[in-house]
């Protein structure tokens, strides 16, 4: 795909990695220019959850032995923010470019569908991880959390943000208007993330709702990420990792197929 060396009329050799790299750089700059809204705002939101829930529940709820509720809450909040912001980055960038019409500038270029996908995906991962890292650093002022398994944190952080970044690309391609995108956020992303065990262990739920929770991919991402901190979770981290990785692969293949066919973008 990238093996052909092209010659521009400027007489310069055209490099095939510079195209996707430029798109990635543009996507990163896009959210960094408005980082007050794209990074600071979600960090504040997460800290407000932390403040309120830990104030109300810290003395009353204990999920794991020897783990205070506030400590239990922090990893879930971090991961929830990582996921929501990875989704927000790719979806809002695409819907804005589509509504403004400036997506045409990318569609006119020789970028392949795979390069297009990778640029939006990596930008979404970075936005998610930057927000997550900021929340972690601020939360460390209040609570001293030890990390049991750093590789699990990295694996779930990367795969989770990749999964939601990909989902955001699908939503961005599919939606034609901002209100359709808002529906995606409010009716899919928010319920799935709030009902994923961020604020509770699913073992505290009635058996039926425990089963339902097992159908929610967000549950595995939150639970696996939390395992990285405490070395324990509601299900085995290997199972969670497998499910998250498989979900990512499926969504990535769907996205690549959509991009290759030109669905909604070139029609």
């Amino acid at each position, binding site marked *: 795909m990238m093996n052909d060396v092209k010659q*521009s009329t400027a007489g310069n050799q055209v490099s095939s990695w*510079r195209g996707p790299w430029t798109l990635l750089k543009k996507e990163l*700059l896009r959210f960094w220019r408005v980082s007050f809204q794209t990074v600071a705002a979600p960090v504040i939101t997460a800290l407000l959850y932390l403040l309120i829930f830990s104030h109300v529940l810290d003395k009353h709820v204990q999920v794991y032995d020897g783990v205070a509720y506030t400590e239990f809450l922090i990893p879930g909040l971090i991961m929830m923010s990582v996921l929501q912001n990875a989704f927000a980055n790719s979806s809002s960038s695409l819907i804005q470019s589509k509504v403004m019409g*400036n997506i045409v*500038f990318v569609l*006119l*270029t*020789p970028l392949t569908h795979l390069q297009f996908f990778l640029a939006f995906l990596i930008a979404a991962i970075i936005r998610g991880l930057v927000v997550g890292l900021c929340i972690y650093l601020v939360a460390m002022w209040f609570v001293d959390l030890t990390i049991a398994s750093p590789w699990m944190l990295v694996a779930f952080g990367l795969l989770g943000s990749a999964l939601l970044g990909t989902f955001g690309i699908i939503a961005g391609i599919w939606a034609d208007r901002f209100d359709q995108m808002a529906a995606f956020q409010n009716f899919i992303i928010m319920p799935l993330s709030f009902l994923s065990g961020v604020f509770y262990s699913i073992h505290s739920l009635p058996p039926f709702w425990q089963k339902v929770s097992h159908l929610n991919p967000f549950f595995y991402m939150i639970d696996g990420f939390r395992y990285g901190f405490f070395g324990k979770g509601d299900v085995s981290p290997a199972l969670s990792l497998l499910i998250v990785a498989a979900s990512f692969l499926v969504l990535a293949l769907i996205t690549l197929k959509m991009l290759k066919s030109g669905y909604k973008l070139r029609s």
Partner: protein
Amino acid sequence: MNHPAIQIRDVHKHFGALHALRGVDLTIEQGEFFALLGPNGAGKSTLINILAGLIAPSAGNIAVMGFDVQQQYQQARQLLGVVPQELVFDPFFNVREMLRFQAGYFGLGRENDPWVDEVLEGLGLADKAHTNMRKLSGGMKRRALIAQALAHKPPVIVLDEPTAGVDVELRQMLWEFIKKLNRDGHTIILTTHYLEEAETLCSRVGMMKQGEIVALDSTANLLNKFAGKHLRLTLGDVHLPQEVQSMVRHVERGVYTFALTDMIQIEYVLSSLRAGGIKVIDMQLNEADLEDVFLSLVGNTAAEHKLASQL
């Protein structure tokens, strides 16, 4: 280097029941300055969108300098610079950033900066290089749009209605710059509503109507073949003799325009008028322009109705 700049072979496009392109064949050689004319809905923009890879044809194919726009889209798009018709922009960046990004998507880096400067200069954008796209006036946004299409120095440049709603100053500046690019070897393809632009700039013209090319020739040939000369007579409110009515191309406030294929017809018209007792108040003889060719080929039903009601 022997490939034509653009080769369009039997391109069809259906939008549901609408047959928007009905088998378009067109070859544009490298170095040409070509105009694609036609009324709204003739299929010009559809054809350009297929060329640019923004939509797929229902049948047929297009090649840019020998590269198929679907099968070899990377090479084809590398060679092509398309100025979109709609005034779109990215509100996050300034003009120079946008141009660098645009060149970057095509694989070009800092070595391309002198060209970016030349484009900024040529389009009168140099002092706006650090202005955010959002803060530019409409005319400046249009310039930036054109600059973006040129950022990777494409050998084939397509301008889709570039001067729609644009002030005279920009129009002249733009055409000077585009003419220079054409002299430097870039192929230029232009769609426009301003026929006089096509007439003065383009060496060859294609006219589209209802999804088909209805005329394709050099500008000079088209003018000779279809239009000849125009005799404009100011006559006032009169009833024309039967025998010259068929020669009338246009009537407006007592000024009658007769289309002539031969100079002998001047005498014929004047003698008929004299016989009918009609006085000539003023008289002008003009070369025909593309508008006449356009009207005679594409037809202008509104003008025809008006003519019929006045005769």
